[in-house]
């Protein structure tokens, strides 16, 4: 029995999920690293990163490129989530619920010894949901404030000028929060506590499932987990979803292109200030 639960595996993340994750890891890390010299221009770390990338203009280019990649990642995520929810009618297991709060409190009480039982959780634990929604919040804040800074002329046509430095303040504060939250919560939760390889292999053993997602395991065993709709139903829903998705895709694509290109903020070469004639000797008083 014990041998079986060590070898029996369940798919946790299909391959597109894993690709999504890698895209986010790469773009997030790049954004964080290239953000350091911009938030802390006097720091040694900032200077080193700046040096490595060959100056502030290159660094900003890399930062912007990583941001664009993350925007595409986000757009892709929205499209596939739409497919998952509308076509496949998967359970919206990532939505937060009151149970998550209860689970969190129970886990904390268990840790400090107030209760004997650790909460039994389903497909996503409260820790995972917290991180996911923190990422959603972070992406929204960083995207909005990033837009204000990237396109200050367009922004100040509709908003007070003060929103731009406010966006900069929020962008920097949120960045610090996001990077440190990843280091504390994510690194501890899935690398230190136990190196959870599911996001790379896509698989979890039954033993791991029993530990971390016992309710999901129960559902799978009971056959009440996500059931694949029949072909005809999928086909029918696809016929509805694909045009919507196409429309969404165009909209998001336009959004991203607009984000990048809505304005030419500054001229890249500026005419030098015209200094009055340099050599104008005083005419001697007659």
């Amino acid at each position, binding site marked *: 029995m014990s041998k079986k639960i060590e070898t029996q595996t369940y798919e946790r993340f299909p391959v597109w999920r894993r690709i999504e994750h890698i895209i986010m890891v790469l773009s997030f890390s790049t954004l964080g690293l290239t953000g350091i010299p911009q938030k802390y221009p006097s720091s040694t770390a900032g200077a080193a990163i700046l040096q490595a990338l060959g*100056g502030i203009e290159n660094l900003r280019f890399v930062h912007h490129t990583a941001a664009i990649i993350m925007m595409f990642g986000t757009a892709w995520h929205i499209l596939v989530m739409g497919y998952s929810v509308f076509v496949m009618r998967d359970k919206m297991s990532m939505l937060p619920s009151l149970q998550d709060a209860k689970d969190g409190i129970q886990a904390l009480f268990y840790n400090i010894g107030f209760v004997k039982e650790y909460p039994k959780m389903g497909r996503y634990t409260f820790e995972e949901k917290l991180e996911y929604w923190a990422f959603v919040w972070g992406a929204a804040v960083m995207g909005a404030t990033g837009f204000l800074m990237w396109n200050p002329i367009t922004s100040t046509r509709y908003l007070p000028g003060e929103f731009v*430095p*406010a966006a900069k303040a929020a962008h920097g504060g949120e960045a610090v929060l996001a990077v440190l939250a990843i280091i504390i919560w994510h690194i501890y939760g899935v690398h230190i506590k136990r190196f959870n390889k599911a996001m790379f292999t896509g698989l979890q053993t039954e033993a791991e499932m029993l530990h971390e997602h016992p309710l999901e395991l129960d559902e799978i065993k009971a056959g009440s987990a996500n059931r694949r709709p029949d072909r005809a139903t999928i086909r029918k829903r696809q016929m509805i979803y694909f045009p919507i998705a196409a429309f969404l895709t165009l909209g998001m694509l336009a959004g991203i292109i607009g984000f990048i290109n809505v304005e030419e903020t500054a001229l890249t*070469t500026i005419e030098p200030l015209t200094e009055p004639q340099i050599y*104008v000797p005083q005419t001697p008083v007659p």
Partner: protein
Amino acid sequence: MRLGKQIRSTHSGISLRASLTLLLGLLFFAYAVVSFVTPVQAAPVYQENKPANDFCLACHQEDGLDFKLGKDMIPATINPTQFGNSVHSDEGIMCVDCHTDINDYPHPKVKSKNARAFSFTLFVVCKQCHEDQFLKVQDSVHQRAIDGGNTNAAICTDCHNPHTQGRLTGKTSGELTPAARVHIPLTCSKCHSVIYDAYKTSVHGNALTQEKNTDVPTCIDCHGVHNIQKPTTVSFRNSTPFLCAKCHTDPAIMDKYGITTNVLNSYVADFHGTTVKLFEEEFPGQPTNKPVCTDCHGVHNISKVDNPKTGIALRENLLVKCQRCHPDATIDFPSAWMSHYEPSPEHYPIVYAVNLFYKFFIPAVLGGMIFFVLTDIFRRIVNSIKGVKHV
């Protein structure tokens, strides 16, 4: 016989030569006494048996000595009072220390074709005593212009008339005297009159020329003296914020006028300043399109920010500056720049609120996370000690 002949032929010359020798001796003695009690800043190479200044002035105080050189008239009359007030006279420098080719009358003929060429043959003697300054000038924009064939560029004597130049630095302090500071722009204005006209109306120039206020920068505070560099280079531009900051971050100067010393910090903290600072460190010689102090405040014509006509505290005035690089900017755009303010409830309250929010939000979120992680670590340790299997 020979002696008799000489006596006879130069009978009147004997008394002149004797009295001259006596005078020379007395002067030399006086010079020796003076030089003993006053610090000598420079040690010129002296001619042997050189004629005294009075000897030269005997003729050269006369009017009508001006002579023609090409098309130019060379003034050769020296006002003894003016010369007497000069630092050179004060230091006991003799005419022939500089006019090294002259020690008697008649003088050798001037070979230069015009006045400028004549000055060029003479000014090199300044090096004898003022080698430091002379060598610095070799590195200057003026020397570069001369090397490029522009003989209008200043040489020593254009700024320092050797016959009238007063003492510029305190005898004991070595510091530039207030009077000398006030006079500097006038010196430069001899060639740079248009720039002087702009400077004189600026907040700095007005204070200097009208109030004799020496807290404000004169030409040399920004451009240097002697080794003046070309101010239109990229490196000069990129280093401008640090140049202005020399005074503008000094509370000893700024507090008197109620001007904040936070201007550099607040500039560096904002988009443009961060870029320029990083640029200045990485590529001091590479052009950047980000503005430095002078792009908004002006160069020689810097005015008070609250000047109702030109002050950039007025959004309309600042917008014009913004539009130089941001041609599409509209009226709300200038307030995207925080005008050197620290965000506070009065100035930039939204920025202040955002900062305040994150000041509490970041520690609250991270603190909660750290607390939970610590309890998790604690439980794992307790469980492993107790031998309980952790979930």
